[in-house]
């Protein structure tokens, strides 16, 4: 299906920046949300938009209720003289994937990736129900929380996940998020406190559900020696792959994540013992357990030290943020090998896995 890794060009994350993830960025439009992240990440690398080989972003018109919402975001990037630029109607993690592919061509050495989303503009549950099959499913208005609750119920009844695991995941994520200065949507809590919460969507308690957040994030990718020039310790992307599953959740085994497993294999996760750290885009606590199992993470792996999507869930941004958070910990020297994951669609329909390393191959 793919060519061997040996022909690949080494590409690394050399800088990451994000806005604070807040419950409601009421006085900012999307352009104002994304500008600080873009300008900060460029400042960190000393690059400007004219020295970036390729620019690509991820966003969703439905969050702002505006067609072409990415068009005005481009104004914030400073696309003059004209730049080589593209956009995916997907989480920014897939924009990063497109940039990684573009860098493989060899004619450019840098790429700017950004993502933004202002979910607070509308009712996100209602908005995302418009993602579903439109002729027979969507008219029932199933929201992501409802579908995730069905998935969690199947996982609990199938013995794949326990209530205790879910409470532990929710408590750890929220506590990590509380200690993350860039996250303004979580508080420190214990597993016992989570278990004591009244059900939101049985069997999901409020802290089992990632709080909707507004925000933006940006990453600069660079290849080879350019990456070494721009960062003392680039986070090399040793592999990146994504896969999708059926949209008909009734036909899927919801107690596992088959597409994550395929993506992890294709990305070359390899020996699970080598993965010290993982940033997983799990907006529901039971999904973290499914993802860790599908990737093959060991119990000792540090999962979502940033707090992850259970601490703050900025739609379209959360996946790119996972890559950025994992990359920062490689660059800091906290880890030598990490996994970053992103998801999209109901009940983990589509998944992306990236492997980040402190040393180039």
């Amino acid at each position, binding site marked *: *299906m*793919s*060519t061997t890794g040996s022909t*690949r060009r080494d590409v690394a994350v050399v800088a990451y920046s994000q806005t604070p993830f807040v419950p409601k960025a009421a006085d900012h*439009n999307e352009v104002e949300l994304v500008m600080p992240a873009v300008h900060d990440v460029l400042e960190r690398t000393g690059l400007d938009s004219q020295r970036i080989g390729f*620019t690509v972003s991820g966003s*969703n*018109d*439905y969050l*702002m*209720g*505006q*067609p*072409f919402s*990415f*068009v*005005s975001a*481009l*104004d914030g990037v400073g*696309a*003059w*003289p*004209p*730049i*080589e*630029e*593209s*956009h*995916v*109607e*997907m989480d920014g993690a*897939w924009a990063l*994937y*497109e940039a990684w*592919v*573009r860098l*493989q*061509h*060899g004619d450019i050495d840098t790429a700017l990736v950004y993502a933004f989303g202002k979910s607070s503009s509308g009712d996100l549950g209602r908005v995302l129900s*418009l*993602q*579903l*099959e*439109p*002729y027979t499913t*969507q008219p029932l208005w199933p929201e992501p929380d409802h579908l995730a609750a069905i998935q969690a119920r199947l996982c609990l009844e199938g013995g794949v996940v326990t209530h205790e695991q879910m409470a532990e995941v929710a408590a750890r994520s929220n506590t990590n998020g509380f200690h993350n200065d860039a996250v303004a949507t979580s508080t420190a809590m214990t597993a016992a406190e989570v278990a004591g919460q009244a059900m939101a969507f049985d069997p999901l308690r409020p802290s089992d559900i990632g709080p909707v957040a507004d925000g933006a994030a940006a990453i600069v990718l660079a290849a080879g020696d350019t990456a070494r020039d721009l960062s003392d310790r680039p986070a090399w992307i040793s592999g990146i*792959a*994504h896969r*999708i*599953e*059926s*949209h*008909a959740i009734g036909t899927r085994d919801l107690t596992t994540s*088959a*597409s994550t497993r*395929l993506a992890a294999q294709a990305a070359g996760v390899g020996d699970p013992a080598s993965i010290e750290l993982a940033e997983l885009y799990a907006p529901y606590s039971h999904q973290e357990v499914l993802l860790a199992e599908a990737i093959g993470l060991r119990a000792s792996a540090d999962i979502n030290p940033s707090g992850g999507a259970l601490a703050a869930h900025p739609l379209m941004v959360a996946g790119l943020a996972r890559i950025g958070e994992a990359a920062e910990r490689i660059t800091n020297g906290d880890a030598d090998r990490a996994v970053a994951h992103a998801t*999209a669609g*109901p009940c983990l*329909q*589509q998944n992306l896995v990236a492997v980040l390393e402190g040393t180039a191959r």
Partner: protein
Amino acid sequence: MTVRTAVVGVGQTKYSSGRTDKSIPGLVREAAQRALTDAQCDWADIDAVVIGKAPDMFEGITQPELYLADALGAVGKPMMRVHTAGSVGGSTAIVAAGLVRSGVHRRVLTVAWEKQSESDAMFALAIRIPFSPPLVAGAGGYFAPHIRSYIHQSGAPDHIGIKVAVKDRLNALKNPYAHLHLTDIDEEMVRESPMLWDPIRYLETCPSSDGACAMVLAAEDVADATDSPAAWIHGTSMRSEPTMFAGRNQVLPQAGIDCAKDVYAQAGVTDPRQDLDAAEVYVPFSWFEPMWMENLGFCAEHEGWKMTDSGATALDGDMPINPSGGVLSSNPIGASGMIRFAEAAQQVRHRAGDFQVDGARRTLGHAYGGGSQFFAMWVVGADKP
């Protein structure tokens, strides 16, 4: 280093104002299946799927590609969704080509679509956001001032837009997939049609169409192993600039000039009018033909209308533009750019049927979007690059 890449399969639906016989998945699958058949391959041979369409608000489904994964055989595979405004069909083809050129995949299916009969494009394009200028009555209201400015600057006579409208509809009569088959089209009919957004008359604007277009892109070894003719990709380029700023030339946008220069340099094209045998250019309003002739470097500034007037852009002219009938004859918005790229490929594959340009060896596919600010282009050839 990039892998030589070719279009080895093209599939289109019949375009019409209402494909009520097909659901959205049925529509995209019709195009995709035809592309696979043309490429002499099956669903299992496809490594990845890249989908493009214009704003989700048209059909009222957000990120509809998630739901189309099944219909397009993407389950268990990588799938991406591109959205770059009107240029999206072209950008989608370029992203898909990039997956092969980079060596990541060997055979990629790319599909672009729109189902305007389940849409309300005018509504979706006219949504008023607080503190933002409204677009005013869809795309025609936005672009009419650009056209007036062009006419003012170039001194072009009124009949130029009419001539383009007739020429493209005559070409469409040779294209079985085209939406509009206006058998009695002539200049008088266009002139007498209602003025919508002065100077754009009803018959000088594009229709609202349902439809999908698909291509199979393959690496050199795969293309060499099939009997299906190949359109080799000689160059691809995308350029973007901001919508509004003081001094911006909206009639002759710099991003379009830069994009054309880039793709010509990659393809070794030094004199585009001489070196290219035909072009499929995104012309949603008739007057954009002369405007884009200048932007693409086929002639000097303010001279584009003379190309149209002289018949140079007709099917039997020296620089045939939109032999397929173009956007003026079929406009499933999100697919319209990909149709340009696909029809450019069909010309060099000698698969263009009754609108084949004799001996076409190298052609251009062009798409633009937003406020004339997003550009996507490719040059394809019968010979390997």
